[in-house]
């Protein structure tokens, strides 16, 4: 039981991050994918030039927005993916590996997002 103690301890935190990420993804993801994944590449809209994009991202509030946009949905993914592997594939014995992979991935992704966003001059 001792080894399960920290997991039990962090469960509410992971769930909160998952929920917050779920809300962010539900509210913001569709419009982002539509614009940057479909509308712009397909030429439905006028291209977003490098200069214009850089000007947008210059504002610290935009960077914070993008940081939240990247980080929380990653935790959302981590939580759901963990349970999908856990239940769907019935690989409970790999529980520790899955947990580290999923939440670890989200943490690394969050760090990368911070680095990428604030390394832009």
């Amino acid at each position, binding site marked *: 039981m001792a080894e*399960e103690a920290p*997991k*039990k301890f962090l*469960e*509410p*935190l992971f*769930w*909160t991050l998952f929920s917050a990420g779920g809300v962010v993804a539900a509210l913001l993801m569709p419009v982002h994918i539509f614009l940057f994944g479909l509308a712009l590449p397909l030429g439905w809209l006028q291209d977003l030039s490098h200069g214009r994009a850089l000007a947008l991202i210059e504002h610290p509030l935009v960077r914070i927005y993008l940081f939240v946009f990247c980080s929380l949905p990653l935790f959302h993914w981590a939580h*759901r993916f963990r*349970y999908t592997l856990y*239940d769907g594939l*019935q690989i*409970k014995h790999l529980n520790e590996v899955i947990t580290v992979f999923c939440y670890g991935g989200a943490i690394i992704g969050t760090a990368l997002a911070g680095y990428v966003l604030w390394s832009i001059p």
Partner: protein
Amino acid sequence: MAETIQLEVTRYSPEHDAAPALQRFEVPYRKDWVVLDALNYIKDKLDGSLSYRWSCRMGICGSCGMMVNGEPKLTCATFLSHYAPGAVRVEPLRYFPVVRDLVIEMTDFMVKLQKVKPWIIRKDEKSIADGEYRQTPQQLDVYKQFSMCINCMLCYAACPVYGLDPLFTGPAAIALAQRYNMDSRDEGARERMDILSQHEGIWACTFVGECTKACPKNVDPAGAIQQYKLTAAKEWFKSLLVPWGAK
């Protein structure tokens, strides 16, 4: 003979069979018959050795839950006419060990139910002379929906998480815990939190939502579990901010 309908019923005798198998019966088809009537017909007229649980015939005792064509149902409230003219397959509740024929072993549920302390807990019990604990209709409304549970276990048979992880406390037990947590007369929320906030408690639930669909009493266990997750998360952050807080 008048109109009939085919029933495929699980038979299993632990004394003789290695595994359950379906047996076919032909019973009279009547529009006003439920699946339980058909089973009673089999037991009375065709084969007295068929075993199954039942009692009230009116959806209140919660004993006649079985899988009807793969769905968890109260057989006393499931009409043959819903399936006619096709055959009706009756199997024991899914995910539970089968004792015999349609009878499942339910101790696992009983133990879990007791663990969440589904009764009113008071810090100081009033004496009988002091009178009853009063409640307004609004206070009753808060938890009434969750108090309709009849412990029929259909929600367990609907829950893939319970099937995959038998340690999971499960829908009905958590909904009943929530029923008492939300009761204005109860003071046991903290005691229950210790049991429910374990991984096998609320956190194992992935909100498949099938428990709520299966519930014959509209209890919405899935909703109860998510609401409880929110409460537990709030409590967790509170205990972080105020680690010396009441415990």
